[in-house]
């Protein structure tokens, strides 16, 4: 395999309960890229991410991260390896303040100075989080919670970010803001696998795209080509 492939899925199949949600998919994310995984509700996007991060066990196939087989590895070890999954719905920890949520994002970072530096970077990037540092995380607005969820992932120092529907439930203005954040993170060097329902927007950011339908990859290609082909947009990406 080539060294610039950071994450590689080979024939990954996994079930969610008794339902086969993902039925053997191949996917590659190259270092420094944004790759987007598109598809309708129930296509298997979230299950794919959960299989990578270890929350769902693969029934078949392999997940390779930087050349190492991480299939079946417990989720906390996958996270420690640098694969950081920001799940759908943000999952801000209620009962913990914004600051505690962020600090816990750096749970695996043992160096206190590094934790402090990262906290400063996150606060610099999302000033609202500094303002609300002592509020209960669950009391933030949807947009603020999304920033907290991303900031918390950055505290970890991810090699690759798995973002599941970061724009879900946000007002249109905040959707654009979120996408700008994703772009900025990528330009700063973070590799990103982005799951989105808003396909047009995702393809505008991404280098490469995959379209998932009923658990199989129907289509893949350069993001520009995918978004330029009207028949594809019509058939798979909705309006």
């Amino acid at each position: 395999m080539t060294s610039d492939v950071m994450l590689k899925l080979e024939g990954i199949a996994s079930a969610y309960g008794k339902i086969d949600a993902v039925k053997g998919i191949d996917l590659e994310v190259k270092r420094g890229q944004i790759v987007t995984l598109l598809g309708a509700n129930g296509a298997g996007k979230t299950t794919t991410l959960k299989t990578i991060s270890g929350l769902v066990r693969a029934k078949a196939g392999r997940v390779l991260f930087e050349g190492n087989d991480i299939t079946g590895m417990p989720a906390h070890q996958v996270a420690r390896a640098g694969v950081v999954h920001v799940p759908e719905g943000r999952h801000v920890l209620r009962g913990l303040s914004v600051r505690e949520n962020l600090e816990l994002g750096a749970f695996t970072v043992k160096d206190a100075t590094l934790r402090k530096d990262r906290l400063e970077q996150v606060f610099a990037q999302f000033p609202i989080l500094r303002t609300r540092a002592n509020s209960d995380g669950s009391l933030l607005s949807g947009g603020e919670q999304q920033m907290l969820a991303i900031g918390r992932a950055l505290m970890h120092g991810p090699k690759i970010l798995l973002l599941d529907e970061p724009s879900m439930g946000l007002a249109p203005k905040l959707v654009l803001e979120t996408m700008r954040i994703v772009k900025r993170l990528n330009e700063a060097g973070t590799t990103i696998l982005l799951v989105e329902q808003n396909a047009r927007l995702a393809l505008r950011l991404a280098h490469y795209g995959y379209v998932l339908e009923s658990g199989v990859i129907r289509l893949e290609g350069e993001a520009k080509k995918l978004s330029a082909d009207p028949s594809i947009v019509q058939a798979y990406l909705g309006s």
Partner: protein
Amino acid sequence: MSIFDIFTNQLLNGIVLGSFYALVALGYTMVFGVVKLLNFAHGELYMVGGFAGFLVLSFLAPYLGPGWLGVAVSLVLAMIAVGFLGVVIERVAYAPMLSAPRLSILITALAVSLVLQNGMLTLTKGQYVPFGAALGFGGVKLGNLFISYNQMILVGVAAALMLALELFVSRTQYGRAMRAVSVDKDMARLMGINVNAVIAITFFLGSALAAAAGSMAGAYYGSLWYFMGFLIGLKAFTAAVIGGIGSIPGAMLGGLILGLLESFGTQLPGVGSEWKDVFSFSVLILVLVFKPTGLLGKPEQERM
């Protein structure tokens, strides 16, 4: 004795009793927080903690004496030993049941309780066992109120342990991880937290606190019995529910409230001390009817 003397006396008794309840209630509430299990074997860990303290003290007394030094060292060693026992119980009995229906694990907890109780019944042949501490009878007189040194030390140790726990939970990364696991296990995993390790730490701490209470009860009241954990287990459960199960400050508050209620309740005209359990459990019923989430508990939020 004047009304005021009765009041201060019962206040003191209530605080002493409440300290025991609070220490045991903490384990209930912490375990419930992280694995959503009502660990009905928790009272037995108080009992085993008492016996562990007795065992250590009987080895150490020739060297350290049966006074507070000997008792303090026995208490610490009993806490560590019973802490590990708690972890073993979790691994052996509860961990395999975590994905099973809720009722199965509850029955498992009752079984663990029976095993510990009957194990100790067999070992002690049902006899009371003298703890073997000799703590003296000194104290301070404030007006008509006599506060023994033993009471002061007991309440002081309980308060120090609770403060240490509170600091651990609010200030350390592992304490925060414990709170994370109690609200969202999958998210905790994604943050790199080893959920099983956090569960083990929780069982260790909860069991160690119960053992501290058991050892102190042995030293304070003078004797141990294989059945001594049963009632305090129920009381601690009540205290945890009053405070709001899952809430650590709630368990402390609930324990104290319960201790005070029992101690004052028995002073009401026409109510003897044989009624104190009726008090506790009536309060439990009232709380469950009118404020099921307890004083400091938060309602469970269903996630989408």
